[in-house]
């Protein structure tokens, strides 16, 4: 995903051109993820470098079934980042205080740094990467570009996943709903006004 070849870049930006024209991208629905029958490679078979990787974890991540051998003390954030290479999920405070690691689990926003991975057993987890359809952005992600809801971008995946969870439970939130739902997501760059506007735009584009 990070390849910097010129063609790749250009195709992405051509795509971005759409964001400005108000064309709404597709949204992955949790229900369709549940129905998906994709299975990831069985990572539980790989020999552990950490001798404490003793437990088997089964869960769904972005529509794929995963079976992983993990250290039972691992958090969900660690497993997503280190075992599945889904580094879009960021760790900021690692303590449940900032929302940087927000992912959506069974339709609800959770702090992935603040729960044991084993507690996600059998659950359906969606990360920022799961919002993409191939290279194509979700309408919420597009709105964050259009309204510039980010600066350094490090808190952004958490912000977007928080907003995503909000929209699942409340498709037409007002300003106050958004401020309430997203007050657990710290943006040290202080892009809050634009983050709010991004979510509002996503709601508007959806309707």
């Amino acid at each position, binding site marked *: 995903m990070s390849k910097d070849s010129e063609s790749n870049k250009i195709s992405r930006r051509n795509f971005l051109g759409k964001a400005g024209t108000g064309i709404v991208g597709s949204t992955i629905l949790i229900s369709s993820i549940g129905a998906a029958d994709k299975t990831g490679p069985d990572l539980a078979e790989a020999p552990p470098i*950490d001798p404490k990787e003793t437990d088997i974890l089964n869960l769904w991540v972005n529509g794929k079934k995963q079976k992983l051998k993990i250290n039972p003390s691992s958090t969900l954030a660690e497993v997503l980042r280190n075992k599945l290479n889904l580094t879009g999920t960021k760790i900021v405070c690692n303590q449940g205080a900032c929302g940087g690691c927000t992912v959506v689990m069974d339709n609800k926003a959770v702090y992935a740094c603040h729960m044991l991975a084993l507690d996600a057993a059998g659950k359906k987890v969606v990360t*920022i990467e799961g919002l993409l359809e191939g290279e194509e952005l979700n309408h919420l992600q*597009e709105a964050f570009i259009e309204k510039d809801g980010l*600066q350094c*971008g490090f808190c952004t995946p958490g912000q977007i996943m928080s907003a995503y969870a909000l929209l699942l439970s409340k498709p037409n939130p007002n300003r106050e709903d958004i401020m309430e739902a997203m007050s657990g997501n710290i*943006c040290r760059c*202080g892009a809050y006004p634009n983050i709010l506007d991004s979510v509002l735009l996503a709601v508007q584009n959806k309707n």
Partner: protein
Amino acid sequence: MSRKIIKSKYDLYEEKIETIAEVPSEKEKPLAPNSKLKYVGKDVNRYDGYDKVSGSAIYTIDKVLPNMVFARVMVSPHPHAKIKSIDVSKALKLKGVLHIITNENTSEIPWYYNTSKLFDKHLRYQGDEVACVAAETEKIAEEALSLIKVEYEIMPHVVTAESAMKENAPKIHNNGNFGRPSEYTRGNFDEGIKQADVTIEDTFTTQVEVHNPTEVHCSVVNWDGGKLTVWDSTQSIFSVRDNVAQSLGLNASDVRVVKKYMGGGFGSKLEAGKYTVMAALLAKKIGRPVKAAMNRREMNLSVGNRPDSNQTITIGTKKDGTFTAMSHIAYGVMGAYPSGSSSYWPLRSIYKCPNIKIDNKSIYINAGRARPFRAPGHVQGTFALESIIDDLALKLGMDPIELRLKNYTEVDQDGDVPYTSKLLKEAYEKGAEEIGWKNRNKIPGSQTGEIKTGIGMASQIWWGGGAPPSYATLKLNSDGSAKIFSGTQDIGTGTYTFMQQIAADVLEIPIDKVNVDLGDTGTMPYSGGSGGSMTAPSVSPAVYDAAIQMKQKLISNAAAILEVDESNLIYSSGNISSKNDSSKSIEIKDVVGKIHERVLVTTGARNENPNGYAINSFGAQFAKVEVDTMTGIVRVKKIVAAHDIGRVLNRKTLENQFYGGVIMGLGYALMENRVIDDYTGKVLTTNLHDYKMPTMQDMPDIKVIIVSEEDNLISPTGVKGIGEPAMIPTPGAIANAVFNAIGVRIKSLPITPDKILEALNSKS
């Protein structure tokens, strides 16, 4: 286009920074006004937006190399101690541990200007480094830290400036607890005070603020024989390169530092970290790449902060408000190693005053060392200065803006030279109108009712005009696409995007044909660190120059291809055609396609700054607050930020950066505070529960007004930086608005509910 070599001079605080730089020899025709341009000044979406919203942006903390191992640093749990012994044997036995370095098995690498070492036995703060473990996984490295046995000799600590300044205080360094003082005089302060009809004096204090960028400080290092590559979460790739090379005894050319995406710095990531050098030592030993990362706790202990301040300001004025004398006597803590804590600069520079006395002391304490933090000294200095000026206005029975205008200066007070531009008056005017200045309480605190509203303002001065050397290379391909390379960095501020905009406008090609790569010392021309609001004003003229040269090169090549004299060719919308023969026309991509190399390359340079001028940015912010007199809670309802920042390059990213500065200023004004327990010497605020930062709920309505257009005395792009100006006046404006609401002056930041309630009690 000819070049020349100059000694570039740039003022930052007292420091006269001099560097040798290559610059265009002649003054270039400036970039057209924004109204005539397609991209510059417009709401162009961020170039790196896709990567950042998709989760595909790879930050240093995300970087994984094949066979990579992890390093974790063990830090001192004590504020002041000496290491008596270290036993790593048990830790080394843990399966998966690869190597451990301490003062016992590494050479003495000097650190902090020779006042300490990479591993020093003398630990001067809770957070000073003791050992570094490399292991197969981060978890194992972490576990190994708990198995290292260290015997400490505990020493007496001192964690406040007041106690550190005492005669018999524990000494942190052999030569005591005082750093280099900042002293300055202009005219004669005592004479000035004698001439005054009215004098005012007061003391203001501010707290220590911690940067807390979201991405922790981290590096990934990899050796390739004697050459080292460092991926670093940094604001300054070339500084890291030089620091690391020096520490390891390497040539700078053997160290390559790469930074693509970085999760915030705010001044804390301008230098190389010890963890980077430790990772390099471990990687060398183990023969595998190493990732070293801090955790949030260490972020709150070790990698910088804004020093606190205790500022006593005296101002003497004539009855009509004309300042006759000003003094700024202050001290602040810079932590355990050399840094600075002075806060006088706004007082010294923003108003006209012939007689000035300054004495600022920087004090060592047993705590993490201060680093530059978004407008070092200016945020705290502006809070104090602008607070006392409002008090003085009240004393004189003047409108606070009128008093500021009375002492307005058109010339730089130090050098007695004019500013390239100064539109502070315009900022006052527009800002006052937008906030509804005339509706503020004429008598502060006069509203009845539990919730009182108030309006206040503060002014801002900063440098941020940029300087050479700063270079950008531009490559034009035969498919018509262009690529810019520059050793600067985008720290979330929109550098990628404005470089793209400028090149697209000059070459008159669609913006999506322009790509930008930044942040690699190994492959890109030099540009400075991204701090001090220097990036855009330094690098935008460089990319402009590269594009102008490219245009010329294309015309020359087209002349040869078409066999038409250059002077008969017209460049328009990426097309070159003959004035008199319309059949003679060629697209620029075909020009590139026809030449042998199929690529054209130019390198542009930042121009020389003009002689005989001072370059500063100016602004004023206005705050509207609501104070709940029952709970003491302050809510900032609105901030108007009216600024003179030269040309706007990108309206979207500019406003966003202003929002960020204002919100960070709000956090500093109302909540952020590093707390150290005096008795144990330990920091109590080491996580984001205890260290409070603003959330979306705290966000005011923010209105950004730019009063300036391009300032072409500075450069052909006419830009001044905005990173620091956005934050400088916010706390002062909020403090003055609180005073206007409740009629009692809160002289200490942060303005927390307890202080409000106490002030209200003492008033009644």
